[in-house]
Every structure is written in C-alpha cells, then in structure tokens.
C-alpha cells in the first residue's frame, strides 16, 4: 500500500514537472519581449534593454526556466508585471475567494448529482430518469456565461431577488456572502451536475445487475438493505474517481463565471494575466492551478484505493 502511495506521489510530481515545462514554453510564445511590453512601443531601445537586463529576461531560456522553477518551488513566483505586486500575494487572495465559490458549488453539486444519479438508476426508463439524464446532459453543455446571463436576467434584473455580482461589501457576514455567491455557484453546479449524475447512474445500474446483488436478493434481504449495502457501496466507488476529474472543468468555469459576476478569484486573475500578457502571473497562476489539480487527483486516488478492499489489501491471502 505504501508502495502504491509513493508511486502515485512520484507520478504527480513528474506530471507537475512536465506541466511546468509546458507552461513555460507556452508563455514564451507570447509575442514581443517583456521589456518592450512593459514600457510600451514608444520607449527607446536602451531603456527596454536595461529593463530586460534588470528583469533577467534577456538570458537564455533554459536559465530563465531554471530560475523560475527553483524559486517557484520555494513559493516565490515572481513579480506580476501588470499589478506590480508579488505573484504569490495576488494568488493567495484570489485562491481564497475562488475557494469559497468553488466550495459552495461543490457542496451543492455533489449531494445533488449523487442523489440524482441514484434516483435515475432506480427508476430507470421512467420519467424521472429521463428528466435527470436529459436535463443534466443539457445543462452541462450550456456554457456558463449563457446560463449565467439567464440567471442574472431572471434573478437580478427581473425579479431582483439576488445581486448580479458576486463580490459582497467588505466585512459581510457569512450569509450575505453566500447570498452573493449563490448565482455563480449555481452556474457552476449546472455544468457539473450532468456528468456526475450520469456516471453515478451508470455505476448504480451496473451494481443493480451484478451477481452479488442477485445473491443478496435471493438470500431474502429486503430491497432497501440490498440497495444500501450491495448496490450503493459498490456503485459509488467509481463515482469518487470521477468527481475529482471534474475539478478541471470547474476551474475552467471559474474563469468565465468570475468575469461575468465581477469576482476577484483565480479565474479572473488568470484572465487578466492572459489579456495583459503578464507572463510571471500567468505562468505562476497556471502552475499553481495545475498543482492544485494534481493534489486533488492524488487525494481522490488515495481515497479510492482506501475504500476499495481489492487495492487496499492486495490479492490472495
């Protein structure tokens, strides 16, 4: 088991390393050199060169990469060009905000989609099933900005029940914060719901048709107990694995949602960074996001193997 953990961890580190290389290469593709970008097209060349020398952006690429990655590992992600502050400072605050939003979305979507998937599987083929499956599917593919706009139109403009932005006034209470975050959270929920519900449904159906469920029923166990113990226990296992992969879509969604609702989260930050060609912020941001994603996947894998006796204990005893 420990061997498995170590291997998995090593894999995560390796992937992160590859990711950092990709990110760095990506950002190097941005046009122009850094100095020119900061000073603008009218500054004279000497000033640009001096700035480049000072920032270190005239050194060979590999050296720049090494410099960047070694300081990144210690937490120093450089200095943002557009905001003129250390990257990690900006990230810290943004991450906190995004965490609140994502957290709220997750808290809503996970129980909802699990329940939806289970109910759809149990009432397979009937109306409830069709509503959950088709409805979920439809909701998933509608881009967040579309659903976001519809939500804003309905709840903020026409009905005026909820605010149309996500940033509460400073010092707001917990409930007020939730009130502000609920619309963007729903946006995210809509996108995530369909896929998770569908995987859950498939898992439950497979468990329902499994031999061991048949054994349980033929033993004479009441249906509710069979569902709880045999079906759910085995069906929810693969769902755990899937939920983790949804984090990727969640982050992508954050960009759009935060922009739409004027919220200063990590998505907004990355968007601004890309718009402003702010390389340190962009690279640092994507790296952190990638790292978070890897950590979530790692935790999910560990959780899954802890739950699954086959992986936990190994083969024949």
């Amino acid at each position, binding site marked *: 088991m420990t061997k498995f953990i170590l291997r998995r961890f090593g894999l995560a580190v390796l992937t992160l390393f590859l990711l950092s290389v990709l990110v760095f290469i990506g950002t190097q593709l941005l046009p122009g050199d850094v100095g020119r970008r900061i000073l603008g097209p009218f500054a004279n060349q000497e000033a640009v060169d001096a700035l480049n020398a000072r920032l270190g952006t005239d050194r060979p690429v590999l050296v720049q990469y090494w410099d960047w990655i070694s300081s990144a590992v210690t937490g120093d992600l450089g200095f943002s060009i557009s905001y003129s502050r250390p990257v990690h400072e900006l990230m810290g605050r943004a991450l906190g905000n995004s965490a609140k939003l994502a957290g709220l979305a997750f808290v809503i979507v996970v129980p909802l989609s699990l329940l939806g998937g289970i109910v759809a599987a149990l009432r397979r083929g009937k109306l409830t099933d069709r509503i959950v499956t088709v409805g979920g599917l*439809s909701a998933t593919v509608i*881009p967040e900005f*579309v659903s976001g706009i519809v939500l804003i139109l309905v709840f903020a403009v026409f009905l005026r029940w909820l605010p149309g932005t996500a940033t509460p006034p400073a010092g707001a209470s917990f409930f007020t914060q939730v009130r502000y975050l609920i619309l963007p959270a729903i946006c995210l929920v809509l996108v995530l719901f369909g896929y998770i519900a569908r995987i859950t449904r498939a898992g439950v159906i497979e468990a329902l048709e499994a031999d061991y469920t048949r054994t349980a029923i033929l033993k004479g166990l009441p249906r509710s107990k069979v569902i709880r113990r045999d079906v759910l226990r085995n069906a929810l296992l693969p769902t755990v694995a899937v939920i983790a992969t949804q984090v*990727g879509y969640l982050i992508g969604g954050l960009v*759009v949602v935060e922009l739409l609702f004027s919220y200063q989260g990590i998505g907004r930050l990355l968007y601004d960074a*890309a718009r402003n060609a702010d390389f340190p912020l962009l690279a640092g941001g994507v790296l952190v*996001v990638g790292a978070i994603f*890897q950590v979530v996947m790692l935790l999910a894998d560990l959780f899954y193997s802890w739950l699954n006796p086959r992986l936990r204990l190994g083969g024949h005893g």
Partner: protein
Amino acid sequence: MGATITLMWIFFAVFGDLVAPYNPLGSPTDVLNRLQPPSAEHWFGTDELGRDVLSRVIVGARQVLTVAIAATVLGTIAGTAIGLLVGYLGGFVDDVIGRILDAFLSIPLVITGMIALTALGPNTVGVIVVIGLVFTPIIAKTVRAAVLSERQLDYVTAAQLRKENPFYILFVEILPNVTSVIIVEFTVRSGYAIFTVLSLSFLGFGVEPSVPDWGSAIQQHYGFLTANIWWPVLFPALAIASLVVGVNLVADAISQASE
C-alpha cells in the same frame, strides 16, 4: 428532436447569408439605429452598432460550427492515431506518452486556450488548432482503452501468428472494431468544442472583430443588461442553448445506440 435543431443550425451555417434579412456586417449608417428593441422590422432588435440581431444570430452559426467541427475533426484524427499507436505498442511508449498526455490534461481547456490565443491573436485557424490539440489527449485516452481491450482478443494473436505487419494489424484488424467508439467520441467532443469556442469568444479570445459570433456578441452587450436592454444578449444566448442542447442530444442518442 436533437437532430432537427442541429440540422437547422447547420443549414443556417451554410446558407445563412441567403436567409438573413439584413446584412449581418451592417453598414456605417446603422449606428443611428442602435439598440432598438424588437420590432416588426427587426424581429430581434438591433445591437449597439445598429446591426440587425436576427441576421447576426443566423449567420453566427457558421462561425461556431465551422470552428468547432474543424477542431473536433483535427482532435479526432490526431487522437485516434496516437491512441491506436500507444494502445498497440504498449510498454514504454505507453508510459511516456501517457504521462505527457496527463500533463496536458491537467490544465483546464479554457486556460490553455487563453494562453495560446493571447500569443496568436484573433485568429480563427488558431482557435481550431488549439482546441484540436487540447482534445487530442482526451480522445487518445478513450481510443487507447478501446484498443487495449481489442488487443487481448485472439484474432490479434492469430494475426501475429501469421507474421502480419503491424500496420495491417492496427488499421485493418483493430481499427474497424474501434470505429464505433471513435464516432461516439467525435459527437460528444463536438458538443464540448462548441462549448469551448463560445466560452473563448465570450472571453474575447480568438475572434476577429466584425465576424458575427454569438459569444462575442454577448460579451459586447452584457453590460447593457442593467439598463434593461436584454435583446442583444438573450437571442444569441437562446441560439447557443438550443444548438448545444441539440448537438448533445444527438451525441447522446448515438452513444446509446452503439451500446
């Protein structure tokens, strides 16, 4: 039902210019007419530059569909090729490429798009290439899994036993048995491609300014919502919703049928 909606939009994409009542690119004098609510002359109203919203919605289908389908085709071809190779060869190649693909997958799609498109500037081909490339690992993964399960079957061993050359095995023996998987992936990814193209254009990446595009239309006009000017936003939004739902219903039906 999904098919009808999708076909309608495809029709508009191809023939939009002929159907649209007004020139979607508008003319300079339109500005006098800006932001008019829906009326008999302009069923969907006019946008901030006075252009007819209905026309722009109709022709907008072309942009979305062309880019999305092209990107999906690119991703499918590349993904299938990689998936086939990796699934068949296995071993070291599988591990190494698998790691690289996983690294790609850990950056959310939209962010990759943003980075790349900032570099490339507003460029339709750029969008196609970027989205296609990002889809490649996902499709490769699915194809690889299908290839792996085919590979275990005895007909592959039988082919090896007659010293069949590897290309024959990959393309003549295995590939026909995975096509159903590929088709399903294609249709599902098309849906996601549309989603991504629109998100990117909403964020302002990758679209040339005057081309009618639903995403950028919304982006340019959503600030007006608080002023109760809802029509330049709602109609493109409805168009988007109907298209994506239509495509996904079709994809879903296809995937159910192949089970």
